[in-house]
């Protein structure tokens, strides 16, 4: 195990939601540290709190308790603009529903990664081409996203996420909408990205995918438990 500083640290992080029927705890106080180069997978049934944890890790949401440290920065001390900047420059996300722009080409969807980044056009192009080559979709570059298969869409989404060269890749049920063959292709992508040194946090309800990760956790009733 590497001794490098953690990319992401959760110290007693919890998330409660206020509902009409009273407060609901989606994530109980949780400790977790993900170091550079790790591939962490969290499994668990729907409603177990794993997506809540992922959104907290993506700085899309703020914890109601505990401390979340990203790349050494205590996110509790950052304002919204600071969180937006971290998310823009250092985090990549892959979603179950792909979230592609259907009428734009594959290339434009990947370039969309740079929509809010200050990157020059030449770098944008180079990184887009590199990401497409990396996940094996260079031949689809000019196709509209809406005509792709589910597996191709997810690979476009992965390319979009990694084109920005994030410190942490977060994947939320990345194979949830895919058949077995496409699941395998997508997981191959993650394996190669991890082998290249990318830090990955993936949540899935598919226990079979845990084998791809270097560290595995199970989430149930908002509680995270590491599996050895």
């Amino acid at each position, binding site marked *: 195990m590497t001794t490098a500083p953690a990319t992401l640290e959760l110290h007693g992080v919890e998330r409660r939601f206020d509902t009409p029927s009273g407060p609901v705890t989606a994530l109980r106080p949780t400790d977790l540290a993900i170091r550079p180069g790790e591939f962490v997978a969290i499994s668990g049934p729907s409603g177990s709190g794993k*997506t809540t944890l992922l*959104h907290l890790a*993506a700085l*899309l*949401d703020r914890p109601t308790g505990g401390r979340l440290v990203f790349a050494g920065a205590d996110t509790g001390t950052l304002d*919204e*603009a600071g969180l*937006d*900047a971290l*998310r*823009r*420059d250092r985090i990549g*996300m892959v*979603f179950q*529903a792909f*979230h592609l*722009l259907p*009428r*734009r080409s594959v290339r434009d969807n990947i370039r*969309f*990664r740079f*929509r*809010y*980044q200050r990157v020059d*056009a030449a770098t*944008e192009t180079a990184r887009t081409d590199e990401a497409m080559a990396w996940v094996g979709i260079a031949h689809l570059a000019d196709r509209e996203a809406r005509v792709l298969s589910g597996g191709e869409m997810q690979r476009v989404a992965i390319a979009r996420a990694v084109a920005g060269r994030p410190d942490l890749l977060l994947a*939320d049920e990345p194979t949830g909408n895919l058949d077995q063959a496409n699941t395998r292709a997508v997981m191959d992508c993650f394996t190669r990205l991890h082998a290249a040194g990318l830090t990955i946090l993936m949540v899935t309800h598919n226990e079979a995918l845990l084998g791809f990760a270097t560290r595995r956790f199970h989430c149930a009733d908002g509680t995270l438990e590491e599996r050895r």
Partner: protein
Amino acid sequence: MSEALRLRRDVAESLRSQPARAALALLAVTIGVTTLTLLLAMVGGLRAEARRMIAAFGAQVVAAAPAPAAVQAGGYRGLDRWRALWAEAEPDRPTALMVRVGAEAEPWRGATVWAVGADLAIVRGWTLQEGRWFDALDEANGARVAVITDAARWAGSPGVGSVGRIGDQPYTVIGIIREGAGVPDGSTRHAGGETLVLVPFAAAERQRLPIEPGGAALFLRAPPEGATETFTARLDALAADPAWRAWQPRWITPDSLLAGIRSWQRIIGLTAGSIAALCLLLGGTTLMSLMLAEVRQRIPEIGLRRALGATRHDVARLFVAESIAITGAAAVMGTALAAVLLAVLDGRVPLPLQRDYFTFVIPAIVSIVIGSVFSFAPARLAAGLSPAAALRNG
């Protein structure tokens, strides 16, 4: 790529993905812009017409028009005695009669002939572009001379020195009134702007040209500082004089002349203004409701943008930009449509239409402002979405 180009591309992409929605909002605002432009053209036209009328009548001029029956009974001499009452009441201010006479005038086609006092040009502030005005000698001798408007010259007279015929007598043209401020021009509907042939009062009387009872007026030049207390008091005293009242005069001032126009302005302001405001309001609310629907439909995209680092401000700006793009396009289309309609309507409706810079620019600016104002709620809704909730929505 600059932020402006990126934003433009985002907006174009969004509009392309919802063409029916964009077209509906575009149509609603376009109708509003067109209506407002037409309204401004009418109001501006009436205002310009009012300015022309005052210029033709004379801004410092007060007139009294006697009742036709009194004119018929009094004739030339009676009218002159009536004028003398005013001259005595206001000895320091020039007065002059202007009386329409019924006589054929050749070669001035369509011209009206007026018997006028020698001081009329001074009272009404007219200047000549050529020749001279009547002098005391013309008045004393009843000389058969005529001064014509520029419109009359174009209607058949070769100019100063030419001889025409009024009734059965020859008249020599001695002057032509200059067009412009304070003088009749061809564009005004006031009598002064028409094709006029003016002859000395004494000449008309000597020739016994028949007076048209409804066409007589006595003009007085008001003091330069306007209706002073002394001036008003003298007019009031005159109005109370039984000899003056026997003529049952109707006062004519720039204000009374404009009463009709002001009435039109009020009617148009209330009706067309309400319609224009309603159209624009309808366009704005249509735009807002469509934008609100669009925000709801694009929640996953909003979540994606936030996941990619977009700030709330970035998201709000996207929707405001879309709205302004629609209203901007509506401004262009509405302005073009209004320009075509104004070109078609000009001369075919009984209203003057003004087509100046502001007539077209103001509705366009209003349209853009509407785009900004009515996109506020959708933009705020979009910006306020929790990114986590937005992504779950997808």
